[in-house]
């Protein structure tokens, strides 16, 4: 296909760099500097897709972020992107795009039958139709989604990379048009750190699409000079292809930078980068978006925004039609008429809703021989897949209807302008208010909570000269407020001031029949919301603009109503009889301004970098040994070590037997370790723990239980007295940071008088736990300065010495009920000692064991795990741990035991369960009932907290929390499971060595 609509000259495209691309499989050509949209228009593509609800044919209607129709599926396979605006895709070699929301193609779409039934599909159609019966929604939904869906999400992981960057600046300037560039220059010259971000590939904003002059020369000269000056300023960063998509409290902004095209081998860099910007001042120079006139069948392909038509001509050297009508309520669109005429477009005429337009631009148009039909409106458009003609009639006195004869103008392009709306989206994101300028029919930024200002067109300044002035002033002002007051005196650039007459605001233009009865007046092109829909909503009682939005889906499409929301809000106001549309208000602008790829939010936090893996010093030994891992917080802990051909149960049984019959080794380095020092350390522990610590001898260890203020178990662990004023606390792996935080909270906020310092030493030590009857023999080979005999080194004591010539702290404590030695060595020696123990340990049957075996072994002894036997609702009494609650002193949580709830007789208590079938392993979390009957409801009396097969006992065991459990010992309870009911006997929770002979041996 040739570029039939490409002009021979002009525009900012590079005709020496042709690019090849395909659209719906058809090969086409464009040039470097094109967008997909400009290239499609150049190639004569009129139809790009179908609308969401009625599947009406749609063409390109804009040239930027406000495009509502031209959504495409970009690329295919793993790199595919859905719902991309053709107006925002820079053309690149090999680009491939297809239409969305139509099948089999945009020229013939099966779902277009919807438009025949439009009378059956009013506003709220889906709510009204598919909500009864409620249960059937899941059936309807499948078909509705298939019929209505837009693009197709990729099914495979995105092969492209995304990353993130944090940056701070004095002044963030949003938008690189005339005002933004001026602001960046003014701020940058003061020496302030400035970021100028612009969504387009080139700076210039609207100037790129105009034939404007600055200082009497084409504006491009000023743009180039400004850009080159900025490049020479060390602390100014210019980011093109970068959209400030969200503006948040404390002048925090999110920006999305597109770095490479959506191409295979896009380069070494990431495709997109998400910037987190923290700015002292924000200057919003985001420009303005043109809004369409709302007339009957204003959605036909070929009906475009007048400014966009001009941009296609001036920037891309593309003619959007060969026979054009301009339809306007203001002077600005006359620029388009003149440009079209200059480009050789035939039959250019202007339909103006105003009576006898008389401004500078209409006068120029008339002089150029362009016909102007005043006080008129388009009453109808013919041509389904492309505009063929428009019908024009004169407006009546109050513009509520039309009079006189209808005239028909053949044309294939209708360029419409209803005026321009300042882009106050970002201002609004961060809590800024807006006021309605009734005369011009637009919202202007008002009070803001942030250190920001809207300037230029974003502040309703539509004269280029004003934008320049505003920009330099705002840039200087922002820099000064950020502390950079040095301002150079320079002659500011100027542009000619064009006298523009006021617009005539008519929100919905009349046709020969009442609105809704002849054609459709579209407000929201992407969601197919019409004036009639909004009027219906008002008749049905909708008053709030927010409710109306949700009911009609006005502005809820991917373009978020950038063109349709303001006319829609005004139509609602009229329907409600509200004089000032500002009183109806706008809906809330929400980030993102334009869609952001989810990959950019993930950044590099994917794959192996998704979350840190915390590794113990012995991590890589475990890995080589082929262990299976258990995640505990961010730690990887060995779960079990299967040998060739072993199942998990085989491995765990083997590890459990070794721990009780030979010797087994556990990597316990992940347990939290807190060094506590100070003259009040013992008193501090008295308050933090439930039991007493003052009397603990140096070198002795004690188990402690920590409660929250509510009396519920928070953490447990063994603490050792290293010196008179020096303790070493251990915590559970998962709670290490939380416990340190808890200690600091009490020290810093409640007990500042206590002289105590807490320091985390978790990472300083490697902890190797030798467990089992042979532990002592093996350890004895490694130390000659510690007496390991039971008398010299009793249970719950600590010795310092050397192990394998390494300085070590050895604790005789146990979480398995077996004689155990916890060897702590400096972390960097952990792996070496671990390896040496295995070199020497084979003769003793040394076996590495993981967390699963540890859990089984401790359950055999009825030792609790915080977070497994407790869930934040369990008090020590429930666990049968009254013995650890001191009666002589106060401690955190104690007062809560006075609550009646703590004394309830039917609280759930920790018990053991032995199933009738010894091979039956209960499921953890299973519910327990007292009666085996089959007529629910059956009261639940508790649940299983831990359940394992115990190789040492040759049967299954379980721990459970059961209402009044201790009174039920000996009773039979039932655990109903799918297809069966399991019976179990309630027992005490200690299954092995209740006297502790192994422990102390």
């Amino acid at each position: 296909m040739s570029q039939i609509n490409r002009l021979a000259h002009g525009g900012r495209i590079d005709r020496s760099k042709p690019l090849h691309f395909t659209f719906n499989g058809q090969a086409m050509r464009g040039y470097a500097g094109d967008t997909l949209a400009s290239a499609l228009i150049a190639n004569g593509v009129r139809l790009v897709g179908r609308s969401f609800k009625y599947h009406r044919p749609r063409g390109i209607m804009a040239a930027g972020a406000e495009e509502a129709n031209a959504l495409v599926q970009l690329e295919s396979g793993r790199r595919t992107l859905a719902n991309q605006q053709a107006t925002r895709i820079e053309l690149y070699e090999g680009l491939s795009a297809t239409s969305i929301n139509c099948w089999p193609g945009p020229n013939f779409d099966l779902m277009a039958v919807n438009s025949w039934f439009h009378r059956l599909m009013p506003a709220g159609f889906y709510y009204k139709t598919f909500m009864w019966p409620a249960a059937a929604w899941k059936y309807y939904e499948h078909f509705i989604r298939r019929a209505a869906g837009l693009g197709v999400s990729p099914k495979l992981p995105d092969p492209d990379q995304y990353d993130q960057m944090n940056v701070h600046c004095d002044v963030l300037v949003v938008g690189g048009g005339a005002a933004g560039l001026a602001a960046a220059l003014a701020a940058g010259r003061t020496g302030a750190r400035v970021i100028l971000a612009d969504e387009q590939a080139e700076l210039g904003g609207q100037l790129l699409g105009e034939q404007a002059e600055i200082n009497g020369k084409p504006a491009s000269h000023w743009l180039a000079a400004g850009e080159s000056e900025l490049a020479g300023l060390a602390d100014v960063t210019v980011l093109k292809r970068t959209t400030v998509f969200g503006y948040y409290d404390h002048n925090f902004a999110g920006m999305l930078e597109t770095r490479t095209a959506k191409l295979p081998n896009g380069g070494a860099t990431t495709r997109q980068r998400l910037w987190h910007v923290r700015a002292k001042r924000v200057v919003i120079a985001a420009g303005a978006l043109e809004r369409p006139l709302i007339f009957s069948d204003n959605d036909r392909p070929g009906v475009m925004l007048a400014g966009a038509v001009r941009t296609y001509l001036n920037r891309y050297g593309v003619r959007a039609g060969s026979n054009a009508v301009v339809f306007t309520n203001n002077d600005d669109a006359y620029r388009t008429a003149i440009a079209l005429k200059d480009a050789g477009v035939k039959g250019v005429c202007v339909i103006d809703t105003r009576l006898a337009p008389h401004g500078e631009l209409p006068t120029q148009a008339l002089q150029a021989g362009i016909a102007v039909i005043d006080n008129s409106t388009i009453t109808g458009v013919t041509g389904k897949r492309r505009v063929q003609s428009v019908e024009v009639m004169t407006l009546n006195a109050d513009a509520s209807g039309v009079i006189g004869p209808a005239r028909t103008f053949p044309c294939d392009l209708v360029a419409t302008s209803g005026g321009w709306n300042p882009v106050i989206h970002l201002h609004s994101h961060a809590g800024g208010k807006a006021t309605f300028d009734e005369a011009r029919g637009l919202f202007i930024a008002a009070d803001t909570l942030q250190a920001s200002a809207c300037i230029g067109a974003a502040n309703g300044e539509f004269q280029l000269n004003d934008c320049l002035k505003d920009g330099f002033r705002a840039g200087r002002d922002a820099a000064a407020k950020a502390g950079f007051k040095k301002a150079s005196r320079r002659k500011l650039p100027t542009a000619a001031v064009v006298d523009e007459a006021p617009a005539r605001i008519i929100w919905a233009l009349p046709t020969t029949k009442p609105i809704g009865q002849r054609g459709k007046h579209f407000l929201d092109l992407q969601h197919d919301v019409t004036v009639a829909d909004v009027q219906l909503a008002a008749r049905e009682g909708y008053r709030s603009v927010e409710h109306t939005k949700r009911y009609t889906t006005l502005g809820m499409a991917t373009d978020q109503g950038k063109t349709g929301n303001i006319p829609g809000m005004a139509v609602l106001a009229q329907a409600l009889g509200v004089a000032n549309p500002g009183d109806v208000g706008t809906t809330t602008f929400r980030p993102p301004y334009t869609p952001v790829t989810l990959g950019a939010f993930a950044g590099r936090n994917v794959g192996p970098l998704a979350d840190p893996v915390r590794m113990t010093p012995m991590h890589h030994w475990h890995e080589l040994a082929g262990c299976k891992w258990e995640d505990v917080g961010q730690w990887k802990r060995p779960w079990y070590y299967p040998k060739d051909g072993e199942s998990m149960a085989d491995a765990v049984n083997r590890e459990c037997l070794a721990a009780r019959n030979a010797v087994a080794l556990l990597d316990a380095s992940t347990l939290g370790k807190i060094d506590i020092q100070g003259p009040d350390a013992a008193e501090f522990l008295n308050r933090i723990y439930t039991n007493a610590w003052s009397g603990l001898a140096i070198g002795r260890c004690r188990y402690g239980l920590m409660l929250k203020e509510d009396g519920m178990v928070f953490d447990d662990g063994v603490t050792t007295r290293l010196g008179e004023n020096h303790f070493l606390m251990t915590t559970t792996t998962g709670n290490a940071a939380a416990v340190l935080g808890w200690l600091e909270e009490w020290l810093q906020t409640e007990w500042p008088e206590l002289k105590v310092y807490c320091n985390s030493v978790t990472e300083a030590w490697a902890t190797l736990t030798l467990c089992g009857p042979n532990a002592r023999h093996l350890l004895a080979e490694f130390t000659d300065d510690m007496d390991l005999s039971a008398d010299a080194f009793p249970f719950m004591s600590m010795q310092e010495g050397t192990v394998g010539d390494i300085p070590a702290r050895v604790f005789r404590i146990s979480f398995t009920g077996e004689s155990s030695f916890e060897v702590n060595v400096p972390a960097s020696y952990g792996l070496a000692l671990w390896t040496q123990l295995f070199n020497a340990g084979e003769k003793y049957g040394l076996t590495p064991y993981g967390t699963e075996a540890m859990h089984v072994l401790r359950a055999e002894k009825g030792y609790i795990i915080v977070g497994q036997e407790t869930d934040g609702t369990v008090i020590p009494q429930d666990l049968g741990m009254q013995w650890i609650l001191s009666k002589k002193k106060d401690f955190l949580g104690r007062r809560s035991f006075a609550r009646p709830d703590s004394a309830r007789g039917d609280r759930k208590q920790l018990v053991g369960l032995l199933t009738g079938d010894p091979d039956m392993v209960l499921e953890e979390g299973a519910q327990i009932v007292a009666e085996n009957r089959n007529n629910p409801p059956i009261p639940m009396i508790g649940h299983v907290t831990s359940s394992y097969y115990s190789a040492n006992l040759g049967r299954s065991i379980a721990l459970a929390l059961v209402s009044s459990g201790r009174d039920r010992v000996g009773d039979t309870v039932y655990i109903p499971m799918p297809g069966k009911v399991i019976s179990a006997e309630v027992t005490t929770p200690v299954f092995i060595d209740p006297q502790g002979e192994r422990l102390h041996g």
Partner: protein
Amino acid sequence: MVKPFLRQSPLAHLHLEARRPLGDGLPEAGIHVAERPHRSQIAVRGQATDPAFLQGIEKALGISLPTEACTASGKPGDLQVLWMGPDEWLVVGGPDNAALIISKLTTALVDLQVALVDVSESRTVIELSGKQARVVLDKGCSIDLHPRSFGPGQVVNTLLGRGHVLLHQTDHEPASGSSAYDIYVHRSYAEYLWSWIEDAAREYGLAMRS
């Protein structure tokens, strides 16, 4: 038995020293990295308002205690004290020096309510330098590291990527824009952080420093 040479830093298994070093025919790299393991590190707690404490530290170490937030005293490569909090500091020295430093401090601070904890084993140090060093940090750190806000001698506890680090800037050459940082990282996070840095530095080129 376990010989001292069997001691392993958290990144030892990556054999970084065996990689091609800087200048060995590699294109110019924007990022230079190295692990600086086994530094002596002592957590010191005490009252900065107590003159005896300040004097004791200076007497024991020959350098003053930094009382201004987020600053360090001493010289990189030599004995340094890094500010960690209003009542918390980290004394850093060369390898295998912790016992000596602690004994000097203990002597000088006798009768004062302080805490001295040897945490040399808790962290390793990744040295990051080069023209793009700051940009690499910007990818994962929300602190303002621009020379106007952060410079040599400044220290901050912060997040880099998803890991907690103690970031100490040791050098900055305004002419070349090159900066150098010591990144103290808990040993369990060291491999994650190393992977993170390698990933973030890829577009600028990465070279090992001896």
